[in-house]
């Protein structure tokens, strides 16, 4: 009898210990402002979900990409939630590497997600990643300099206008350059900008038979336009400038215009960091009248790897971090300008948010991009500033090196395009796309 009650007590104790033991989920994320803010606000989540503890792994974007790719491809199971982009989601979702997120709860309001963003994260009708913040690209310009040049920026400028304005705003003696654009080689660096730009010139990476298109006229037009413009009106050493370098140039008053991620709007208008905070205007990315603008579409999203043992807890976290309530939480603690942008329609219907100077232009830019029909002519791939195939990371960077070299002047435009065509053909043949 005594033995039996002892066993009962011990097993009850053991059971309660198991129940009391919190489940820890590991979240891999990138180091940018919105993600860091989320880490600071997680007390709200743990208060609402007492059984779940959070462990963060923050890494630089490229390190994170390599790290989570290794883990998910080998089913290593190190992470329960991963921060990935619109490039990975279609590829990984098709491989069966991600858990479907169609059941994030009744109050999640999945239909509130912006259609352009949701489209990029959906495969065969199922959502495979929940958008944490979305971004496009747009023109950020100095209102004082454009006025001085005697011009007025339209809401939807053409490339011709931008080129003209850039040349007129340039004052090299005073270190003011009409336009700052990405030049640093990399598929997520200069190729994000140039691929999106090429869409507006009617170019494309591949035709419907997956034949590379760098030997066609629209690419030559795109690259010549970019290099001529940068030579006339760009800062020196532009072939090594990425987002951060241009941000620093713009904030210190050295750029007339900068075409880059919409997320930069909150940086350049922040008076603590930017010397031109009160002199910045926004416009849509330019076009050439062919029906596509030169803006991209990206969403940092939260996804759950198929190998996780803690899918339920992970889903609770994903639902919390991408919910309407989370946006309201950020607004109440840090103000509306710091709310992660570009994911929910309701945010843009909120009159408080409409007062943020770059809110409307961000939404218009996002809506102007369509990852499923990114180019003027039909293409066999998804993605505005990338091609959602596994080979693209290597390919995009190799082509980016050619274009960066052309900007630096070490190869001509024709040579760069010829090299790009050759290396892309070789890679596509190796990958079995071309017979």
């Amino acid at each position: 009898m005594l033995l039996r009650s002892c066993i009962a007590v011990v097993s009850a104790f053991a059971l309660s210990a198991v129940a009391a033991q919190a489940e820890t989920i590991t979240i891999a994320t990138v180091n940018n402002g919105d993600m860091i803010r989320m880490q600071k606000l997680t007390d709200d989540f743990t208060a609402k979900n007492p059984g779940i503890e959070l462990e963060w792994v923050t890494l630089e974007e490229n390190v994170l990409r390599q790290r989570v790719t290794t883990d998910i491809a080998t089913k290593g199971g190190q992470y329960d939630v991963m921060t990935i982009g619109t490039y990975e989601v279609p590829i990984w979702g098709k491989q069966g590497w991600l858990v479907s997120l169609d059941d994030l709860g009744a109050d999640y309001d999945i239909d509130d997600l912006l259609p352009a963003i949701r489209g990029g994260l959906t495969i065969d009708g199922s959502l495979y990643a929940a958008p944490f913040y979305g971004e496009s690209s747009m023109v950020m310009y100095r209102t004082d300099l454009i006025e001085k040049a005697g011009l007025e920026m339209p809401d939807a400028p053409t490339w011709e206008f931008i080129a003209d304005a850039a040349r007129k705003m340039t004052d090299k003696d005073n270190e003011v350059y009409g336009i700052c654009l990405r030049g640093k080689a990399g598929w997520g660096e200069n190729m994000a900008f140039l691929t999106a730009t090429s869409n507006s010139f009617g170019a494309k990476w591949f035709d419907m038979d997956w034949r590379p298109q760098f030997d066609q006229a629209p690419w030559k037009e795109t690259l010549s336009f970019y290099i001529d413009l940068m030579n006339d009106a760009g800062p020196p050493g532009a072939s090594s400038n990425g987002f951060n370098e241009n941000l620093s140039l713009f904030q210190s008053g050295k750029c007339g215009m900068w075409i880059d991620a919409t997320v930069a709007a909150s940086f350049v208008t922040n008076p603590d960091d930017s010397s031109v905070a009160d002199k910045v205007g926004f416009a849509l990315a330019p076009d050439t009248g062919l029906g596509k603008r030169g803006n991209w579409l990206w969403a940092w999203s939260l996804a759950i790897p198929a190998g996780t043992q803690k899918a339920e807890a992970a889903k609770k976290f994903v639902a919390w971090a991408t919910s309407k309530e989370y946006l309201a939480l950020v607004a109440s603690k840090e103000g509306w300008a710091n709310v992660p942008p570009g994911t929910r329609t309701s945010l843009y219907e909120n009159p408080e948010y409409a007062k943020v100077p770059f809110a409307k232009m961000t939404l218009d830019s996002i809506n102007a991009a369509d990852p499923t029909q990114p180019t003027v002519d039909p293409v066999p791939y998804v993605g505005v500033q990338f091609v959602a195939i596994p080979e693209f990371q290597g390919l995009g960077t190799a082509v980016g090196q050619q274009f960066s070299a052309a900007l630096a002047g070490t190869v001509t435009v024709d040579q760069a395009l010829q090299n790009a065509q050759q290396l892309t053909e070789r890679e596509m043949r190796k990958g079995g796309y071309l017979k």
Partner: protein
Amino acid sequence: MAREASPSRKIVTTAVAWAIGLAIFFPVLWTILTSFKTEAEAIASPPSFLLFDWTLENYAEVQERSNYLRHFWNSVVISIGSTLLGLVVGVPAAWAMAFAPSKNTKGVLMWMLSTKMLPPVGVLVPIYLLFRDGGLLDTRIGLVMVLLLVNLPIIIWMLYTYFKEIPADILEAARMDGAMLRAEILYVLTPMALPGIASTMLLNVILAWNEAFWTLNLTAAKAAPLTAFIASYSSPEGLFYAKLSAASTMAIAPILVLGWFSQKQLVRGLTFGAVK
């Protein structure tokens, strides 16, 4: 007889040496200075050298956001653990090669070195799978093992070079006096090779401390050392140079201090046998 250098020549040599030293140290100095600037000052052009508002806010922020001590402790355990284990394996191996060489010794030495010629990423997936199946992912013991294997060729090569400098006759004399193998290695060889062993140890602690491929790829939250701590402050979209500099300074400070205090030993060990 060596000619005494003239005073002017001495001044010139000293100046050149200082200039080279400063040039090499400058990036570290700049990182340390940037860590005390605000983010706006960190990117200011032209940059200010010393005349800026010194602030500790980056350190405060880094301290608030990350668990520095956990990363630091992981680094200590991984670097010292892998080095000590490396010596346990490396000393007998180097002894055998230096004092009891066979006809294959040269080949074995070369073969060991050849493992360093393969880029680590080439074996990432097999090692990752082994770690996954052995439950070693994100554990310190796993990292100790992998860094031990990575640095073992260097440990054996360095020790082998030092041991070669020790006259075999002394060991033979010890054997004549009845010393067994263990006593010979522990009481005769080791004390004589101590500077060499010390510098091997220091160099390997530094190498393991700075190793950033395996430590980043095989860890997640629990066993991540200071390399992962630095990587968490780098960002391609957003200017966090001052915070990154603060994190870097905190990560390199311990090893810098260790290097500072042991530099005499390190230099002595590294130049050991260079002049005959």
